């Protein structure tokens, strides 16, 4: 699933990747993102909070504007020109997502509000049908709250047990412990593909192989992976894969649940309403086919179209080229930031993507964030919606710089200078 393996420190890249990257002109690419042109606090904006949300290229902004200026209508029901056109655009976006994930069928692509809603959907439909008292749901110790709480709600309701596979001090999943936690009581495994707090790329291939030996379906939370890695939901064979549009240069309020047709077909609907039915009487309702069974009500049409434009933009640049650029940037940031006295990196897995979490002496991350902000540098500080990860490392919070395709080495240099400034203030 991860075609561009990231190993830190830097390794020589294969020739074909280097060639692909010869055309990756980050300074030219930055011009596609209008927000990056502005100055904040009288400084050039250095946006390093991409794991929270990414900025949007002009093509995405234009696609949303064009939809409202030209195509807006409700979909799947009108006989008129605009409705037909809006439906085509919306379904076109679904096919773009399908091809981006290499899903076998467009019906396996369900539009939702984001990764969070996708996980809740699976927990409330697949989970409520298949998880019973005494059963177990298996997650890892590096999940975002969105891949913890929906399962806790389910387990509490059903009298089931949430099991958590531990991670190492470097932030890697302990696969032997994970394997030991799988068993006849395990009804679903839910794991992140890339940790939002640590940057760890998890071994989803191995995880899926192990779980499938027990016939346990696996949900992969790809919110932090899709912006950085080439994803193929058929290799390895994911049962569910979820992501949010806004982290991959698309709009907020739109995301994707991929699920295998056989699983989705067998699941009860999540929400009832219009569009998810094929016929309704007061006695009985027949649900619509996939994917519409899971898309009750008027969906976020503009969002889906914006997401489609974002994925086409990413495809245009090439996921391999993006991965190679970001890999190099993360290696450079890891090298330069860790050279600063007093720095402790949180998350030092061999395979990482996009995230550099750190502590500086005993300075609280909030103070680091405020001082960097005065330099125009945006990072995230706090628990990153992964409080159990913070607890695992015995800390209350961390500072996190996270990278996107448009970040540069100069911006990493600015981060390093900013951290030096923090040290001066607290000297």
């Amino acid at each position, binding site marked *: 699933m991860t075609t561009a393996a990231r190993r830190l420190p830097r390794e020589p890249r294969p020739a074909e990747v280097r060639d692909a990257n010869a055309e990756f002109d980050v300074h030219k690419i930055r011009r596609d993102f209008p927000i990056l042109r502005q100055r904040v*606090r009288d400084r050039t904006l250095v946006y390093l909070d991409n794991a929270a949300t990414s900025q949007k290229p002009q093509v995405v902004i234009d696609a949303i504007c064009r939809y409202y200026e030209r195509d807006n209508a409700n979909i799947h029901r009108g006989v008129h020109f605009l409705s037909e056109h809006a439906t085509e655009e919306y379904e076109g976006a679904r096919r773009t997502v399908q091809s981006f994930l290499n899903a076998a069928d467009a019906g396996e692509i369900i539009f939702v509000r984001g990764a969070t809603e996708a996980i809740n959907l699976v927990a409330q439909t697949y989970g409520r049908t298949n998880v019973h008292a005494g059963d177990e749901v298996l997650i890892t110790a590096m999940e975002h709250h969105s891949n913890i709480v929906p399962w806790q709600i389910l387990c509490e309701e059903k009298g089931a047990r949430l099991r958590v596979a531990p991670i190492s001090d470097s932030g890697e999943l302990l696969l032997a412990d994970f394997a030991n936690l799988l068993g006849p009581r395990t009804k679903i495994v839910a794991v992140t593909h890339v940790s939002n707090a640590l940057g760890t790329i998890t071994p989803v291939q191995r995880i899926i192989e192990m779980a499938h030996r027990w016939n346990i379906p696996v949900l992969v939370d790809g919110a932090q992976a899709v912006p950085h890695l080439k994803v193929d939901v058929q290799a390895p064979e994911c049962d569910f894969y979820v992501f949010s549009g806004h982290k991959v240069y698309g709009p907020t309020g739109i995301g994707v649940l991929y699920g295998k047709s056989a699983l989705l077909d067998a699941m009860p609907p999540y929400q009832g309403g219009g569009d998810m039915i094929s016929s309704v009487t007061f006695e009985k309702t027949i649900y619509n086919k996939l994917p519409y069974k899971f898309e009750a009500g008027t969906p976020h049409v503009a969002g889906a179209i914006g997401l489609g434009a974002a994925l086409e933009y990413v495809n245009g640049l090439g996921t391999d080229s993006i991965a190679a650029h970001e890999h190099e940037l993360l290696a450079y940031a890891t090298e330069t930031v860790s050279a600063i006295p007093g720095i402790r990196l949180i998350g030092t897995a061999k395979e990482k993507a996009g995230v550099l979490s750190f502590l500086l002496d005993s300075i*609280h991350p*909030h*103070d680091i964030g*405020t001082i960097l902000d*005065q330099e125009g540098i945006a990072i995230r500080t*706090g628990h990153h919606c992964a409080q159990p990860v913070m607890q695992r490392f015995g800390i209350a919070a961390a500072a996190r710089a996270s990278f996107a395709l448009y970040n540069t080495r100069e911006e990493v240099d600015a981060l390093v200078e900013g951290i030096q400034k923090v040290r001066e*203030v*607290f000297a």
Partner: protein
Amino acid sequence: MPDLRELYQEVILEHSKAPRNYRELATANHRAEGYNPLCGDHFTVYLDLEGDSIREISFQGSGCAISKASASLMTQSVKGKTRAEAARLFDQFHKLVTGQSPANGNRSELGKLAVFSGVSEFPVRVKCATLAWHTLHAALQGKQQTVSTE
């Protein structure tokens, strides 16, 4: 542009590194916990109330430089004060950090707490500066539950 030195004044940095009255209070008859769920700052304030006055006060917990220094200076400021005096001080402190305090107004009552005037230029940090005070307020009310800045 707000000046970082206005926010991170020497007194604040010094108190954050070596907070005063930083301990559990064995004689405490009131206590409360304060929590900022956004950043994870977490403090416990211990009070030894004798009648209406604060005979002894201490705190423990973790947080940023602003929240910790604020808790430390707060314990120094309210020790020996009555409930009403502490409440009045909180009110003035709150006005100071939210920029509602007249620039050339009389801040003498605030004493050392005036070092937090720079916070008003950093609105997202107001919660840091006031967390300990909200916790003190809860302790004075005799509330047992955790107070939250949210």
